[in-house]
């Protein structure tokens, strides 16, 4: 989704001229578009009075920001230590096989982005996967297909 200038103006309005609001503004934009389009970064630089290079510096430093469009569905597999020892790696591999992309990538049709995270702090549910905000605890390779089917169903309904 490409942002309109008026929407960008709305999203940066309360931070105008405030350099320290940079991260928060980028988060608001990412929440809205699920990624940071280049024109948004330029708009932010101007609105906050921060050099564009610094905006890119911050946007590439933190892992929650994406400079590429992400899929309609976001699959996140936790690989925190608890998930790792309980087989989170095998769950991630099964997602990779099912979706045909490696972690960090988006399927060519733009439907799914597969991500891994270093800990969601829900270790009691390990291994854990989160699809479109739904937490799936005690994941197994076998459950991957079911979880993906649920995401498809939600989209159709």
């Amino acid at each position, binding site marked *: 989704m490409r942002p309109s200038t008026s929407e960008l103006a709305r999203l940066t309005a309360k931070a105008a001229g405030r350099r320290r609001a940079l991260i*928060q503004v980028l988060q608001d934009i990412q929440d809205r578009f699920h990624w940071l389009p280049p024109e948004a970064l330029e708009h932010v630089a101007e609105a906050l009075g921060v050099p564009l290079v610094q905006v890119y510096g*911050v946007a590439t430093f*933190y892992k929650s920001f994406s400079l*590429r469009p992400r899929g309609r569905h976001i699959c996140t597999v936790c690989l925190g230590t608890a998930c790792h020892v309980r087989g989170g790696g095998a769950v*991630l591999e099964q997602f990779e096989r099912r979706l045909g992309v490696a972690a960090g990538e988006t399927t060519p049709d733009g439907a799914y982005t597969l991500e891994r995270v270093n800990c969601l702090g829900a*270790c009691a549910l390990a291994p854990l996967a989160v699809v479109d905000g739904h937490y799936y605890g005690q994941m197994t*390779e076998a459950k991957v297909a079911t979880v993906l089917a649920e995401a498809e169903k939600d989209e159709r309904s």
Partner: protein
Amino acid sequence: MTAYRAHLLVCAGTGCVSCGSFDVRRALEEEIRRRGLAQEVLVVATGCNGFCERGPILLVQPDGVFYQRLKPADVPRLVEEHLIKGRPVKSLMYVPPNEREPVPLMKDIEFFKHQRLIVLRNRGRIDPEKIEDSIAYDGYAAAAKALAEMTPEGIIAEITAAGLRGRGGAGFPTGRKWDAARRAAGDTRYVVCNGDEGDPGAFMDRSVLEADPHAVIEGMIIGARAVGAAGGFLYIRNEYPLAVARIGKALEQARANGLLGKDILGTGFDFDLEVVRGAGAFVSGEETALLASIEGGRAYPRQRPPYPAERGLWGKPTVINNVETWANVPPIILRGSAWFAGIGTATSKGTKIFSLVGKISNTGLVEVPMGIPLREIVYGIGGGVPGGREFKAVQIGGPSGGCIPKSMLDLPIDYESLKTAGSMMGSGGMIVMDEDTCMVDIALYFERFAEEESCGKCAPCRVGTGAMARILARITAGEGTADDLDRLEALAATVKQGSLCGLGQTAPNPILTTLRYFRDEYEAHVFDKRCPALVCKALIAFAIDPETCVGCLLCKKACPVGAITGELKKVHTIDPQACIKCGICLKVCPAKIHAVRKTPAVAGAAGSPAASTRTVPPARTGGPR
């Protein structure tokens, strides 16, 4: 005010919510309305109880009956039996591992029985979204006392006398930190709450923020008064949306009640707080990096000294403590330093929250007095390792910590003892490992983590963590040499000494402790090309035992690469050339048949050493994603 005859406390921590506790709550509310009990029974959503693995959890008060793993479908029966007929429902209660009889009362459950709650005192008993609940349990009474009756020096003296040390990992005395900030020159000062709980395997700070946000805010008000700060920040991880929402609501309520803002409680003291959401960088948990992040920049740490207490946010004196530390402050002020100092060991006072996770029967958050032996946590509270497997080690302190072996289970846990053992308190993650965990693989896991999360500012950490990870990857691929172990030790020493911040300085700990306590496992990988725990893919193989295979086709259907051949009721076989060692066949083979076996790889076979397979896709750091 209505007096209810029963309170149904539904846990609404992240763990229980993900298991559907909101559905259970809705079902309870509906059923209670339907049964006409709305005037008698109140449903309350509380913060995390800590026994996350058993979620969704429901505590019925005043009876103290503990229900677990509830589903909305259980609700009509529960209401009918327990609340109308007065017969608690046994089948929904907790049954300890290897036992048959349920334990009805929360206070009798081993997981809860041995805990000592100071920070988590309000867990599971208050609605964290209602300031009235917090106030009913002495919330803000300590702030009132500190603001109205104590001098700033008096507050600092009390915290110092209590012996409170930073719960974020390093254990710096809190009173000394506050005193330094108070004495630092300048008019503007800040207090900051470090809620960037990045250690994988630790989630106590998230739980405290979710379950008792007012305790953290109150601690910060007291700290602000002590050091003379008019403003402060709560920096909370991006991955914790519920914590951000709850603390935001709590701040609004505190302002509305005159507990934040101008002239707090009529004492003339002005103070307010702002929430800053992190953006996903482990290094931002380092205090100077966190401050850089609040200022809106990249989370780069900087040289200390000067410490933030002297030069912090925007160059002003800043006290930065973590969530658990702040939440300890109100009880100390209210009950006195002597009470607090009476708990714990000579050098470590009070309690510590640990997240007990991994290969453990009772997973969850536990708060225990400092000095408690590790054995009591793992076996007494945690119920030991499930599935009849053998305990191997506990990894304590996340990527900065180390693995404590079985022989040290009687170690009393405090800051000093953990350091002597080569680990550290860290934020208190305790990951239990059993015989199926490979210690070299664990060391590799942590080094990859450190490499990925290194901010890149200093060379020892940026280059060193990657170099160590590559050596470990070689060893797990069966390509390690005898020199590699020496090289690892030398590199570890360099990274430890030469790194700028805590991330790099402690990154070698997982390697150093596993080398110290599990050297035999490294040697098995290097010299025998064997992974004793049968984890490292290059060193294992999967095979089907023709004697036991019944030809059920389950593994054949599940194999993602079609490496299994066989017909119904005929013995199946795995083609080792095609097998990717994902292990799915082993998991789908019915336990009572157990025909799929994991074995050491036969030297020279496909997929054995040299044909190294990567287990996790390479880390993505820096650059546009």
